[in-house]
């Protein structure tokens, strides 16, 4: 696992975000084992207490569960992937909408821009391989 | 106490180069005097005296230098940080250096004597013939050795105290150290005279019995009035304890 930190924000939140991202994109699946706190701390070179805090928060949120003597796992079922995806989606879109509003765009123009960008990017994607 | 031996060992290992080189120099000097440049007009026995006297005069000076050096290198190489960080009493540090110096002194003395014995075999034997017996010579030699160790220890105590006090002041460390050396010498001397009445009950030490001088010549009487010396030696012991205390509680590293 690699995390590029923005040290201007709390690090434990960024660790949690990284796990959320991996769950949402399917890199981590329900039931998967995640690294022990000590191992993760050593890999990403972050204070073990900070990693512990991230894990504790994720447990409280029901994202992961720690089984005594076995390790920490992504929680099974109950649509955890869906939930995390939705959470991330909502956050991303919220940020986007706020940014558009700040630029003075309304719903209609925003959607228009989005559509245009989608088709523009699709064209480049199609052109690229050649 | 388990930490004492490693300290002594460290000091011995640290000084093995100078000791090795000096041993080689002593033996080399003796070989030169014996075979290459024999003093003109001197008998073999007189040549032996020349060959032995230089190392034996030089040795005490060397030991004073080494007792100073043993502390100075710790500061110069910043290893005093390590020493002052260790959870050990200060007296262990300075007494381990004292024991290290004992060993170094004994080795160099041994090299000089064994070297003389090997290089001047015949002359030594004829010299010994003057003495009552080999056993007498060995016994007295050992007693003199013990006595010289005591004198060496006293010198080391003075040098260590002077060095440690020098390190406790910010500036003029050398000057302070030299003054401490003189002052502490004067102090223990005064202390000897001051405490003399306390020890007057002590009988004088019969040196002629201790060294069995009657075997050399009948009727020699040599006695040592130990009363004034006892106070001095107590003073030296006190200075030793003081040095250990200062090392542990007052010495700082340079910032």
């Amino acid at each position, binding site marked *: 696992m690699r995390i590029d930190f923005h040290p*201007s924000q709390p690090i*434990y939140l960024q660790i949690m975000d990284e796990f959320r991202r991996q769950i949402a994109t399917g890199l981590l699946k329900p039931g998967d084992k995640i690294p022990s706190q000590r191992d993760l*701390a050593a890999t990403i070179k972050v204070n073990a*207490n900070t990693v512990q805090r991230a894990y504790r928060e994720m447990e409280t949120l029901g994202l992961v569960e720690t089984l005594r003597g076995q390790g920490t796992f992504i929680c099974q079922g109950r649509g955890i992937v869906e939930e995390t995806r939705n959470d991330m989606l909502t956050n991303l879109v919220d940020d986007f909408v706020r940014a558009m509003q700040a630029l003075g765009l309304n719903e209609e123009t925003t959607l228009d821009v989005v559509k245009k960008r989608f088709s523009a990017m699709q064209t480049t994607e199609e052109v690229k391989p050649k | 106490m388990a930490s004492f031996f490693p300290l002594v060992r460290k000091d011995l290992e640290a000084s093995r180069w100078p000791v090795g080189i000096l041993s080689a120099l002593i033996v080399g000097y003796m070989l030169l005097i014996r075979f290459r440049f024999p003093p003109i007009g001197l008998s073999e026995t007189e040549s032996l005296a020349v060959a032995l006297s230089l190392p034996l005069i030089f040795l005490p000076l060397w030991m004073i230098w080494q007792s100073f050096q043993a502390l100075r290198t710790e500061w110069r190489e910043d290893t005093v940080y390590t020493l*002052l960080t260790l959870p050990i009493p200060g007296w262990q540090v300075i007494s381990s250096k004292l024991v290290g110096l004992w060993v170094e002194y004994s080795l160099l003395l041994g090299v000089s004597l064994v070297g003389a014995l090997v290089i001047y075999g015949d002359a030594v034997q004829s010299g010994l013939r003057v003495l009552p017996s080999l056993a007498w010579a060995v016994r007295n030699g050992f007693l003199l050795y013990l006595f010289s160790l005591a004198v060496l220890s006293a010198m080391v105590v003075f040098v260590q105290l002077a060095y440690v006090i020098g390190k406790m002041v910010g500036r003029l460390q050398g000057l302070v150290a030299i003054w401490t050396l003189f002052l502490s010498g004067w102090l223990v001397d005064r202390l000897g005279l001051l405490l003399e009445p306390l020890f007057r009950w002590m009988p004088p030490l019969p040196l002629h019995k201790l060294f069995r001088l009657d075997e050399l010549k009948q009727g020699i009487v040599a006695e040592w009035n130990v009363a004034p010396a006892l106070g001095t030696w107590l003073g030296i012991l006190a200075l030793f304890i003081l040095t250990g205390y200062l090392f542990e509680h007052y010495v*700082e590293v340079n910032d």
Partner: protein
Amino acid sequence: MNGTSPALMLRNVKKSYPRAEALKGIELALPKGEIWGLLGPNGSGKSTLLKCIVGLVKPDAGEIEIDGNPRSRCTKGQIAFVPEMDTLYRWMTVGQTLAFTSAFYQDWDQRRVAGLLEFMGLDAGQKIRSLSKGMRARLKLVLALARKAPLLLLDEPFSGIDPASRERIVEGIVREFKSDEQTMVISTHAVGDTEQLFDAVVFLDEGTISLQGYAEDLRREYGKSINDLFKEVFA
């Protein structure tokens, strides 16, 4: 061990030198199990403060308590101090250095030594004299981490060494620090990418504490990294 007392307590610690006042009344209490960063530019008093805690420097005033006990010969046995300078005996080998140090500390854990040496890329037969500055810095850390010392004090462990050694040292600290039984103070004048190590930081400015707090709280409060905050405070 006293469960309730802080790992380290400083009350009004002062130290003056003929040239300058190095520490002007430091007050600090470090809870157990945390890594604290002691941050400040060169000459701000960081090193003097750490030396006062070990006993290499005697404060003029104030009290220092280690796990509730006033500083003494005994507390030296509870502290693992990693000085900035080269304080190892140069004629020794790595193995001799380890053997020498182990003789003085009851908390020395010989079982950890081999693993630590391997992790740091050190060999017991190497002469200290022949090691690079970075390798010597690694060895100094091994000497501290091979013990189960309740209090570790690291004075500028990252300064002036090669990036590879720096990385090893950072990883070694994270990997070996036992937050259930140890507390650590790391002084540095260049925060850089090491800020992720710290639970909390103290900014030391000309002998006084100008800012202190938990790293995550400070990031949230100021919206800045500790590194940026450091640059701002000491600009």
